């Protein structure tokens, strides 16, 4: 885990009880983790009453450093020993290391899930709708008499709220082909999971 001097400075500041009192430290770490997970907040530090008379500039610096540190820890899947060795270097007391580790490790998997979703993906299929029609005739041809399936794939895309539809029609033979291929994929997936 590599941290810039800015971050290590910030961490040192947040470990220093002269700047960030013990009474405030736990609340600060909690709001860092909560803000990471609660994206609607936009990552803005809510300077609530719980931080009392702490100097705002120090608070801001500590908050930024703790947030970067938490993200780095989650990104590198750091465990408590990795975390303590870094924090010890930044002159944290054992008590503060414990506070940070407890709060952070509890939220780590959630933060990692969030980080895992940050990437550019093709539209992700989350559901499928179908409808079966019997195609009887049109203005050019009578007696077409063919079963036709209308398939709608519901997809989700990164950073978009609504699902998008991918629609196509297929005959019975085409649907058989499609299902056959999906079954192949499922089977090879099952095989891979047993390896």
């Amino acid at each position, binding site marked *: 885990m590599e941290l810039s001097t800015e971050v290590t400075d910030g961490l040192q500041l947040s470990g220093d009880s002269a700047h960030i009192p013990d009474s405030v430290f736990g609340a600060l770490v909690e709001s860092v983790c909560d803000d990471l997970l609660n994206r609607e907040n936009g990552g803005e530090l809510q300077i609530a009453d719980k931080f009392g008379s702490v100097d705002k500039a120090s608070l801001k610096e500590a908050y930024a450093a703790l947030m970067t540190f938490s993200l780095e820890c989650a990104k590198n899947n750091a465990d408590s020993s990795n975390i303590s060795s870094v924090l010890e270097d930044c002159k944290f007391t054992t008590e503060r290391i414990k506070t940070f580790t407890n709060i952070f490790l509890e939220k780590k998997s959630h933060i990692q899930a969030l980080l*895992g979703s940050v990437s550019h993906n*093709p*539209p992700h299929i989350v559901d499928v709708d179908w409808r079966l029609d019997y195609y009887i005739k049109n203005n*050019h041809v009578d007696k077409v008499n063919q079963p036709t399936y209308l398939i709608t794939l519901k997809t989700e895309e990164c950073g978009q709220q609504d699902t998008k539809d*991918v*629609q196509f029609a297929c005959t019975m033979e085409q*649907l058989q082909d499609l299902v056959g291929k999906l079954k192949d994929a499922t089977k090879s997936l099952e095989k891979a999971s047993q390896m």
Partner: protein
Amino acid sequence: MLLMLEDEHKEHLAFLTSVGLDVVQEFCKISLGFIKKGSNPKMYQAAASKLGVDAETVMHGVEGLMYLFTESSKLMVNEIDFQDSIMTLGFPEDLKGLLLQQYLENRKEIRCILSEMSMDLPQYHNLEWRFDVKLASRSLKHQIDPTILLKLHIADSGERHTQVLQTDPSNLVHMTNVLDKALQEMKSQHCRRIVRNI
């Protein structure tokens, strides 16, 4: 199902009785060619001067045949109904036989051409799949995220386009099951009954 021929149409076709069978055969060839490749009015003039009639008569004859063939193909008129439909034209036996033969030989192809003209929805063409496991990304190292990439080929009015989609194992299983059920639905009593009765 019988084909209802209009009087004007009958008049146009009546010209065919005044020429020899080989000429009618040539007319059939021309009209089928026009159906397949589009019409070429220059041919009317050439044929008309050869036969010593005016171009309009030739045009009506050819167009009459085109209409006869396309309408019967559209309605999928069967052999007996086709014979009965053209009975009203008062053609001799050999001429009727020739028309029937030409109709039966070309019906499939004409229906093909007609269905190409019909309105069509984007149609499934092919699906390719690939199984990946995401191991790391810039924002998160050490991850194991199985992903199925799907490339969907869709044909839309003659043009093909592809779309890349992805899904996860549980959605893949879900999707396979749902679509498999859709396939089984066609074998259900309800669907079979409807299909049988139409």
